[in-house]
């Protein structure tokens, strides 16, 4: 009898979990659509976590783990990762790679594993990343975070205001997709 009760309890828990999962999956895109573009989404995750790499003032990227719903397709997960980066770090001494006004205009995951990420800002006609260190940290904050959390994505092609530019901020070549660069990550991460 006790065993039967336990089985019934587990069964009920699984059913509730499945229902919640289905409900969440259905709600996901609607919730995303209503969220202001480019703003960080809720991190009240049901399942999963991601590692985000934020620029530090030591010239390195620093890992910050946070809960995030990862139960979605690769392109959408990449978008959530970028939105959380733009939303900024939780830790002290770290910085968001791009201003909070940055919007994710669109993203497109190619069959070769390249994520085409189009960012924009009403305040900045060009990416506001003057200086090579700032430019490198901003770009690879996005690239390392996206590729590190979405295995299908091998590289990120950065676009700004709908254009794939020769460079991101004046130095870094962005005519090709960027692959992650672990050399920029702090050893402590």
């Amino acid at each position: 009898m006790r065993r039967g009760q336990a089985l019934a309890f587990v069964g009920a828990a699984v059913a509730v979990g499945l229902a919640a999962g289905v409900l969440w999956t259905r709600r996901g895109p609607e919730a995303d659509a209503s969220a202001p573009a480019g703003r960080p989404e809720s991190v009240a995750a049901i399942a999963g976590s991601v590692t985000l790499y934020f620029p530090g003032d030591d010239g390195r990227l620093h890992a910050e783990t946070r809960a995030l719903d990862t139960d979605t397709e690769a392109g959408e997960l990449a978008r959530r990762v970028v939105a959380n980066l733009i939303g900024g770090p939780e830790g002290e001494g770290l910085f968001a790679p791009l201003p909070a006004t940055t919007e994710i205009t669109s993203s497109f995951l190619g069959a070769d594993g390249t994520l085409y990420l189009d960012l924009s800002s009403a305040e900045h006609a060009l990416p506001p990343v003057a200086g090579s260190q700032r430019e490198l940290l901003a770009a690879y904050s996005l690239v390392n975070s996206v590729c590190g959390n979405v295995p299908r994505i091998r590289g990120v092609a950065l676009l700004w205001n709908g254009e794939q530019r020769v460079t991101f901020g004046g130095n870094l070549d962005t005519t090709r997709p960027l692959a992650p660069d672990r050399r920029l990550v702090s050893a402590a991460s």
Partner: protein
Amino acid sequence: MTHRALLLAAALGALGVVVPLRALGPAPAESEKERELPLAQMVGSLEMEGRSSPLAVMLMRRGPLFSVRQVVERLGGELHVGPFQQGHELKLGDTSFLFGPESAAVTFGGEIVSLSQPPQLGPGGLAVPLDLLEAVYTELDGKRFAWREREGRLVVDSGSLRVLPVAVDVVHLQGVSTVVLQFPARPRYRIVDGPGRVTVHVLGDRIQPPARVARAREGLIRDVRFGPQDVTILLAPGAGTESYELADPYRLVFDVFPGGAVAPAGGTPALPPPRRDRIPTIVIDPGHGGSDEGAKGGALVEKDLTLRLARLLRGKLLEALPVRVVLTRDEDADLPLDTRAALANQLKAELFVSLHLNSSFGSRATGAETYFLSLDASDERAELAALDANRAGGDPLTDLELILWDMAQSRHLNASQRLASLIQGELNETLGLRDRGVKQAPFRVLMGAAMPAVLVELGFLSNPAEVDRLEDPLYQNELMDALTRALVRYRAATWVPAGASASATEVPE
């Protein structure tokens, strides 16, 4: 393997469906607008001598692009396509033109010229702008093009080359020989220096040589020879030349000096005897410029300070080394990144040094950083180039495979790393700067440089204390002294006497 650039183009095309291109606010620098989507694509026609053939045309904002393969099939020449369709070689007669997608530069005979827009991969293979076709077929073969967009017709007039009679005078005086080529009108031409010879290629015309040339085998001249479109002056061993033009009547003059001791322009004091058979060139690139201001800190703007420092460095290098020093810009002007490296290539520079000021998140970062190029290991083209850089004794790659213009630097990475280490070491030791180390990054300005090339970040404009130092002329002087010492050490370590087989830019590890 599927062509990466094609994938990129396809993906961008798909993206274009959902991402409408927007007009930017301030106009970006020209270099930042090179990649664009076609306004339309069409199958037009190429018409010549009363016959019409299909021609794939991509209509771009800056004019049409034509399938180079279909043009070559009608107009003649040999077209070779390299791996991944990146490098294209079009050979017409003895002249090879090298070009590729997304690069608005074409090279031929050691020269690099800019195109009105970069070629693009399209349905008919690589599509090229009209000025590239004119550089090939008009200059060499006298063909004239007329593009009638409304009808989608590219009309080619076979034309005929002018015949230019040339008179040649040779004078030998005080150990210097002078060759004067006189034409009835100024021809379009290019000069190609080779070992023991200098050749004038006349573009778009044919040469009618003189019956004879007096004193053509005296002094420093071994002979003067003529081809249908070129004049070649054969030189005595070790001799070097300097050319200039005279008007009324038009003359192209070559002064030939013994031992390569070319007199400097402008009547400046004679330089010390050069160590090689021509004066080596160092190209200094003041980062940013014009509308691209770079980083800012306090009253300092990166584009202004890099120019000031580059001028300072030029003076110091000219005092310290028997070199020619050329700045990529000597004024506050926009200059595309690819043009900076192309200039260094055109000058056959030994070294390329790009000067910058840094900026970071927060205000703590301080010190100097020296970068050389990193190749993204995921890029097949880079892998190919890197393979070549390290290949020794294997099957030789063709010139076409070797010349990937936007990755020209891949063949000089070892030397660039060595140069970067010397510069960083001098900056650290002399100035007591915090060692931020030698670093690698895929910086665009370094990619096309076909010689050892580094980018030096001389301090952080995001750090107020460092801004104060950088404003001090004494500190600027010390920084450029450190760079000068590094470049002197590099040249001392890599100098190879004339006639030695090794390249002066190959640095033993």
